[in-house]
């Protein structure tokens, strides 16, 4: 009995690690954009375009790496579009982001219908058992028997922290997000920095989509993300614009989702509608109590105009 309870816990945690992956890519990407002062609500649309690009690249060439590269390039193109609209043309960021999301939803559906037509599967990234570590009881099955995109997503947490907090470029990004006018007088190119951050974020969102279509579900269907991009944006707030906070938020959300799905399998008597609601309710509750507005980049959602108010 104890053995089977333990096995269930291991399965839940392994699923939680897996499910956190797309959120990690997308949220860490969005964190860069927001730390530079750009609120990009188009994440969901970029993820969809990235998911389709990765799926289609893999389907056509049989190479997962081609899929990954195409997804990153597709993300970059979407990021350039968002940058031009929100940085150069200084459009209201929230609205243009929603526009970008709808654009991505439509574009990915249109391409899917014209280029693929019907639902097909691809051979995605397979789990890789890390030598030695994967033999550690329980922990090996939870952490070290995942696919490559999962490992990379978790590596992104320390890497992005280092880039943002310990490099000169990271300092410039934070300056541009806090006080773009001051950064500008010190010779920092505000627009360029924001372009780079939005595009970096969009490329990571493209990867987030790829992690769905060629690692987690291994197929593409219209609106594959089912709103995951919006959860990713919420996780940036939840995580207080810090990689570690985002990691905790993503894991909390994915763990509750995994528990919710297992609970039904285990036959625990609870209405399915309530179970499905659980992750979202918990996220909202946690967000309410953890929100630390003080950490919010001061210039978030404000277009920068030299000499402007």
């Amino acid at each position, binding site marked *: 009995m104890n053995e089977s309870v333990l096995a*269930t816990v291991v*399965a839940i945690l392994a*699923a939680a690690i*897996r*499910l956190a992956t*797309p959120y990690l890519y997308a949220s860490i990407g969005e964190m860069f954009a927001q730390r530079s002062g750009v609120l990009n609500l188009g994440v969901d649309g970029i993820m969809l375009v990235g998911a389709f690009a990765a799926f289609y690249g893999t389907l056509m060439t049989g190479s997962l790496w081609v899929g990954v590269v195409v997804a990153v390039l597709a993300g970059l193109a979407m990021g350039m579009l968002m940058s031009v*609209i929100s940085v150069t*043309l*200084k*459009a*209201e960021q929230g*609205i*243009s982001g929603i*526009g*970008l*999301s*709808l*654009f991505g*939803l*439509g*574009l990915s*559906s*249109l391409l899917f*219908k014209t280029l693929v*037509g*019907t*639902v*097909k*599967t691809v051979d995605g990234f397979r789990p890789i058992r890390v030598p030695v570590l994967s033999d550690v009881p329980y922990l090996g099955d939870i952490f070290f028997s995942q696919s490559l995109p999962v490992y990379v997503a978790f590596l992104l947490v320390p890497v992005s922290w280092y880039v943002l907090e310990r490099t000169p470029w990271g300092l410039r990004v934070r300056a541009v997000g806090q006080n773009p006018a001051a950064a500008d007088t010190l010779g920092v190119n505000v627009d360029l920095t924001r372009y780079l951050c939005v595009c970096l974020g969009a490329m990571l969102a493209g990867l987030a989509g790829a992690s*769905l279509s060629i690692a*987690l*579900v*291994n*197929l593409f*269907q*219209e*609106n*594959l*993300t*089912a709103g*995951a991009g919006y959860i990713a944006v919420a996780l940036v707030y939840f995580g207080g614009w810090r990689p570690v906070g985002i990691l905790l938020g993503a894991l909390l959300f994915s763990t509750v*989702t*995994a528990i919710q*799905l*297992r609970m*039904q*399998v*285990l*036959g625990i008597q609870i209405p*399915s*509608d309530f*179970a*499905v*609601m659980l992750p979202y309710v918990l996220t909202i509750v946690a967000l309410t109590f953890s929100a630390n507005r003080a950490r919010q980049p001061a210039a978030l959602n404000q*277009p920068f105009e030299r000499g402007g108010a």
Partner: protein
Amino acid sequence: MKLRTSLMAAAALSLIVVACSNSATQAPATSQPASPSEAASTAPSTAPAESPSQAAKKFRVALIMPSATTDLAFSQSMYQALVAEQQKAGGEGNFEIKFTENMFNVPDAQAAIRDYASQGFDLVIAHGSQYGAGVEEIAKDFPAVSFAWGTDVNTFGLPNVYAYTAAAQEGGYVNGVMAALVTKSKKIGVTGPVEVGDAKTYIDGFTQGVAATDSSIKVSKTWTGSFSDVAAMTEAAKAHITAGADVLTGSSQSVVGSIGAAKDAGNVVWFGTQSDQVSLAPTLVVASQVYDWTVVLDDMIAKIQSGTLGGDTYTLQLKNGGLKIAYNSGYNLSADAKAAGDKAIADITSGAVTVSP
């Protein structure tokens, strides 16, 4: 100033693309992909020698559906039936099909229904139980147009509304009987969207079929809460597989995720419903319950052509041929299980077994 222009540009851009893909109205048949109609179109011997009166009046059908014609499930089943009707009628010249896909959004669907009705189509099919209120309202405004909707049984007492539904529990029962004989671990997993409609009746029937065959088998069910969340379906299926299930089934267009998970696991088999799902996993699908709406459409169209625009309710059953069990020739089903499946079909058809929805 700048801001406004760029905003408008962004909005326009997104609207155009969304419009292109989501509510694009297409006339099929000319660019029909190779899959469903290929077999039929290679044998066009029935096409010529149409009576002149029939050729003169083209029958025009519009179809509004919640997902895509290629969803391998609910929408595809109706679309394929219409294409089959078109072939029977002698092609596009005699039978026109217009359709609008991805109408998850009910107000958009109502606009499409009204639009088609005002264009003078003979039959407007609102293929989704969520469209009922719209059909009731719009049908009153267009008494000369025939409407059909489902899955439901309510014609609202209107003379120009047909309703149609599927006794999905029947095929569910047959699948369940076979699943009980296929499973070795005695654990079966079910992944469904929301506990309503034919997803619920299929799964209820499936559970009864399993229980009637071997009451020691454990059937556990997961509802993801969404018809479209593929990632949740994948994870739900993985949960069943890690819990030891070696047979899976489920309903809705997002089960492609479950089938993918079964494929990745390698030793897990799948029972399908709504459409033949063999193409996704050619060696893992044991059998699918297939909806064949031509049974409904044959009668409905004949009635409309003779002037009766509505008032009837249709149910797809094993008995009337509207439900079929498509065995997958690529899966090596044991003779015992196949015989048990055939017996279940015969019993339901003869009335010896009744499956409660």
